[in-house]
């Protein structure tokens, strides 16, 4: 369906990129969690190795994953999310890609 009679809100392009980033981070999170939990934790418990007293799979998947993805969330928001006005007016002079609103 052609809807050429108006231009999409210019803020949406950046907003879409941010939403995709969040989904990307979600998939990375799943992969990290899965690889460490089942990569290190699938053998018999008697053969587990330990990190700081925790079983290694648990340390890397649950504790490591929490720390790593908290940091990555911070990186994503600080370096890839952009401040923009949220008001209803459509004629903002706002251009994606620059930090200034």
């Amino acid at each position, binding site marked *: *369906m052609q809807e050429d009679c108006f231009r*999409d809100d210019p803020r949406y392009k950046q907003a879409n990129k941010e939403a995709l980033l969040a989904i990307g981070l979600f998939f990375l*999170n799943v992969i990290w*969690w899965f690889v460490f939990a*089942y990569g290190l934790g699938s053998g018999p418990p008697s053969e587990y190795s330990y990190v700081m007293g925790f079983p290694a799979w648990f340390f890397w998947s649950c504790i490591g994953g*929490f720390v790593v993805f908290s940091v990555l*969330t911070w990186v994503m928001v600080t370096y890839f999310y952009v*401040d923009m006005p949220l008001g*209803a007016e459509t004629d903002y002079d706002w251009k994606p890609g620059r930090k200034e609103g």
Partner: protein
Amino acid sequence: MQWEIVVVMFIYLALNIGIGLYCARLNNQAKGGFLEEYFLGGRGMGGFVLAMTLTTTYISAGSFIAGPGVAYSMGLGWVLLAMTQLPVGYLVLGVLGKRFAIVARKINAVTVIDFLKQRYDSKAVVVLSVIGIIGFFLAAIAVQFIGGARLFQSMTGYSYEHSLIVFSLVVVFYVTFGGFRGVVLTDAMQGIVMFIGTAILLVGVVVYGGGVQTVMTNLSAVNPDLITPFGVKNFISIPWIMSFWILVGFGTIGLPQVAVRGMGYKDSKAMHQAIIIGTVFTGFLMFGMHFVGAIGKAIDPAIKIGDTVIPELTKKTLNPWLAGLFLTAPLAAIMSTVSSQLLVLSSTIIKDLYVSYVNPNPEERFIKRTSLIITAVTGAIVFILSYTPPDFLVWLNLFALAGMESVFLWPTLLGLYWKRANSSGALASIILGSAAYIYCHNFWARPLGTHTIILPLLVALISFVIVSKLTTPPKKETIRAFWG
């Protein structure tokens, strides 16, 4: 019961009432429209408050009482499962994102149903979502009320009925008078209590158990399964646990009480901050509480009832003042969840039913009074339901989380990002999604090993896309209002 715990409890309840009163004054002084003030706090939430209200609304008694109880019998595998909730903060705010906040301002939406109504312009979609909200929320809130009253009962030694009365009076009071602002500010305070409480208990239990290494040795001595990712007797299979990334991770985007928070923040800075704070906060709470539950087995292997694990461990490992402080945390978790749901329920009745269909231009004074009355009446209905809980309530609550997701997830998400999404698609998705859920729940609990929610969500997505493609696209004015 120790008097110290009772003292801490009542100080805490008084604080909540104080915040409610303070917000009632702010609501009255505000210059914007009353509905936007009362149901959305004038879209003025800052980063910290947004993070707290989003995560505490989501985190209920389940994460403080029931979840750790299961972790107690399943071991570290259940902590692994709980960690699938880490993304809630960045998913809800990141994926609904700025588009949701911008659109809500363009179309002046105050509730999620507001959004759906204007996007799909269909009475059927609105009616089905209203039915979904009223049915599921009444059940979910009543069950939380029951949980709150039981907890209060176990802490103070009052009877169930008296506990329920005190608990409901406090919550209904601050929700009714404080509105959205009261709810989010009490959420923020409750969030801080939950955080400190979790930290205290985590340290307390690990120290009491003799350090991590000793605890792990003792745990595997009880049963080596407890330190594997698979739970006892392989209860936690891989396809099943993977489904939780959808049920309690991605799917939470569709929960109206969570999503509505994506409309109410002040500016993009608040959203950025909230994503970071929310993620750290959720991760810490989920890890802390479930880990405490899991290692509880190494400290006292004889606890019989799952729901008493956390209270028992608290009394065993902490001194009475600290125990009182900690035990307010699950109560806070319950209060922050019901308060938001209660407000969504009353906003549904006032904004989505009354203002939308009965009287589009009500007088400001009238709507003010009605909003307070409806909120209070809703609270009273829930109170009556929880006083002698009928059976269907428990049954409905089983569906609440998954049911909400199968009704709201795709209509919200696709309506926001896909121009072609139309009302027929949304209707098909709501109807087929919930039908598939009811079918799976009764006849096919773990399709191919996955959790019951997965297949219905897929059915809902596919039917949404196919039916939208086959029917006429939405009106040009709608597209222009949402995208232009």
